[in-house]
């Protein structure tokens, strides 16, 4: 063990590599080095007839494919194995304590980061005398004289431009407070949402009084971080048709540090399911909306619930875009009222519902194995999970870890031979 970890540290100079090493350590260490021994105690051994058929059909399906009532496992023991880890760290420190500590390495709370008094102490550090210690478990980052420790696990830290999902916790004076899983609630100003009656209008006092008609406590919404206030709170906006209230699906919470920031955070997945992968770890899985739903009056009829909307609907039943001169504003009004509707699509099929819960379990699987979550990985896990006809099997720890291993192995192989892996 000590020799392998030394190798890992040796290549850890490069950031990209380093992340990989971390993931590998987390994932593989319990398997190989510490002998993950979950002594399973199965509730019952007998299979029902239907399940037996399933197991036979999926040839390589392991024993877990049969449904169990209750799985009980034992926690991992033998933590003393970690000693070998700390030995290797010590070796490195002795070799060049000063130099090593300032490189990209993992520090634990209370660990000496540097004794150089010239460096400025940033986030995640504290000092006693001239010495700087880490206050969190994470990696050291140094920008000129500023030394900080970036925690491996932390609450979500919003950045401008993040596409996130949040839940309204409070309706206040001209603003909503939104829980985004961060250290403090984000603020959504009344002025930064689309309102019915035309988006180009200044918000009046009347709008302030009817704020609960748009968003109320508990509502989930899909928004973007517009700015950060001085105290670190995020200011949000939903001034785009792709943002707004969420319907037709389920919320899944995963740790925010697993979400990889990419250009795009909403995708359509196979199985008529769409996903909004909030950077803050709030993930919304929902039925893929019909592309034409925004202007079609038939869906409007189904989703209408509002008195304003009924009024609108009555005289727009034979409405087609562009046929009348007022179409621009009317289109705006219709789409925005739909944004604030609380009604789900009445025609969500059972298959879509099953796919949604399967994706949910796939996400939980990735988060259990601490694998970064991207669109391709979700699809990959989904493909693997199809081996289990009932996705309820995916909540078993053993199954989740097996799938996590498969995903990482698959990616390793993909690195070797891309064309071959694409077919997976």
């Amino acid at each position, binding site marked *: 063990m000590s020799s392998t970890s030394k190798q890992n540290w040796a290549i850890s100079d490069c950031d990209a590599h380093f992340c990989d090493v971390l993931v590998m350590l987390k994932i593989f260490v319990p398997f190989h080095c510490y002998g993950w021994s979950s002594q399973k105690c199965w509730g019952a051994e007998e299979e029902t007839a239907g399940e037996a058929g399933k197991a036979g059909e999926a040839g390589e399906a392991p024993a877990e494919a049969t449904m169990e009532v209750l799985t*009980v496992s034992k926690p991992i023991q033998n933590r*003393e194995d970690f000693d070998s880890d700390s030995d290797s760290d010590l070796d490195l420190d002795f070799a060049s304590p000063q130099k090593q500590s300032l490189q990209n390495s993992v520090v634990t709370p209370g660990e000496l980061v540097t004794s150089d008094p010239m460096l400025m102490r940033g986030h995640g550090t504290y000092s006693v005398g001239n010495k700087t210690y880490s206050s969190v478990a994470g990696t050291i980052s140094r920008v000129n004289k500023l030394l900080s420790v970036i925690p491996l696990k932390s609450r979500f830290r919003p950045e401008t431009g993040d596409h996130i999902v949040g839940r309204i916790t409070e309706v206040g004076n001209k603003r909503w407070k939104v829980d985004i899983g961060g250290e403090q609630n984000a603020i959504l100003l009344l002025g930064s949402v689309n309102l019915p009656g035309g988006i180009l209008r200044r918000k009046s006092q009347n709008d302030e009084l009817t704020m609960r008609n748009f968003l109320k406590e508990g*509502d989930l919404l899909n928004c973007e971080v517009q700015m950060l206030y001085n105290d670190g709170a995020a200011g949000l906006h939903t001034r785009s048709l792709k943002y707004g209230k969420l319907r037709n699906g389920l919320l899944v919470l995963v740790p925010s540090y697993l979400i990889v920031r990419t250009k795009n955070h909403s995708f359509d997945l196979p199985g008529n399911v769409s996903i909004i992968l909030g950077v803050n770890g709030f993930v919304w899985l929902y039925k893929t909306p019909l592309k034409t739903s925004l202007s079609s009056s038939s869906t409007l009829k189904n989703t209408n619930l509002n008195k304003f909307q009924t009024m609108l609907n009555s005289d727009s039943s034979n409405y087609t875009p562009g046929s009348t001169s007022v179409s621009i504003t009317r289109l705006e009004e219709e789409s925005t009222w739909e944004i604030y509707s609380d009604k789900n699509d009445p025609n969500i099929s059972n298959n879509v519902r099953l796919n949604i819960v399967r994706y949910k379990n796939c996400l939980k699987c990735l988060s259990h194995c601490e694998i970064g979550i991207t669109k391709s990985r979700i699809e990959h896990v989904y493909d693997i999970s199809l081996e289990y006809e009932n996705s309820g099997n995916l909540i078993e720890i053993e199954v989740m870890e097996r799938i996590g291993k498969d995903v990482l192995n698959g990616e390793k192989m993909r690195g070797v031979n891309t064309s071959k892996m694409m077919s997976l």
Partner: protein
Amino acid sequence: MILSPAERSYLRDSLSLETPIRPDSRLVGQFRPIEAVCNFLPNFNGSSRVRLSDGNECITSVKSSVVIISSSSRDDSVNLIDFLFNIPGYRDDSNLVSNLTLTFNKIFNNNFDYSSLKLKNFKNHFFKLSIDILFISNSSDINDNYVPLTLISFSSYLALRSTRLPLLINDLEKDEEDLNIDKIKTQKEVELPMFSDDWSDSTYLFPTSPSSSTANANQRTPPLIFILAVIDDNLFVDPTIEEQYVSDNGLIVPWCSGNIINPIESTKLSRDPNSDSTSSSTVGLNYNHLTKGISLVKEVAAKVASALDNVVNTSDENEFLNSIF
């Protein structure tokens, strides 16, 4: 925890389908996997720790003491099993804690065979079991309505199952003596029970039969308490918090040694401060729910019990010599 109206109606629709789709895709009678150990506290007669993947954890310890109950006062008012709940953030006189204590005391004392707690050859001496339950949760979602009763029940089952009582040594010696002298002795002077200080001589309160698979049905076990969420015509075991929030009603079904035991109770699982009047707050139970619930519990309970028994049977004495974690 609050759900948005859209989430709530989506969940309800999924759960009230003819073949319900639970949010984590479990079957109606499937529990969430747990992590469990027992007998890990050295100073107690029995102990257990049960963890759920959502971070809720329940630690239970059983400590025995000897009490003297004269035959005249032996009636319903004497409880030989005494539960004490400790839930951080809740006072002992809070609704949550007192309701839990009441439920558990009632179910366990009504269905416990006190003869197994009686000291052999002593008329009025009994073991009294003090069961302390510490429930740790990292979520703020526990309240009077949302109680992970299933987890607590698993934990107390395991702790009782792993409980060992010390061996009495008074009567062992007496067996060799003359029986007549013995009788006179016990009548005249009140003798104090003496116990062997060798812990390896202790006996299990609930002895496990060697062939556990065959004798499961009539084996004596501690009670297990199941909580079922009722949504439309469907019932679910081990409901998650979301399922509880959209449920119409809840059903508490205790089970012991292969049988459903009384009292079967209904309980309200959902209390959403923001829920409007339409959200099924007045739905009652009907006869169908009861029969469905009872048959569901009957179906799963034996499997749950044998899964938990396996933990006791495979637990290793020296497992926790270095560390309990």
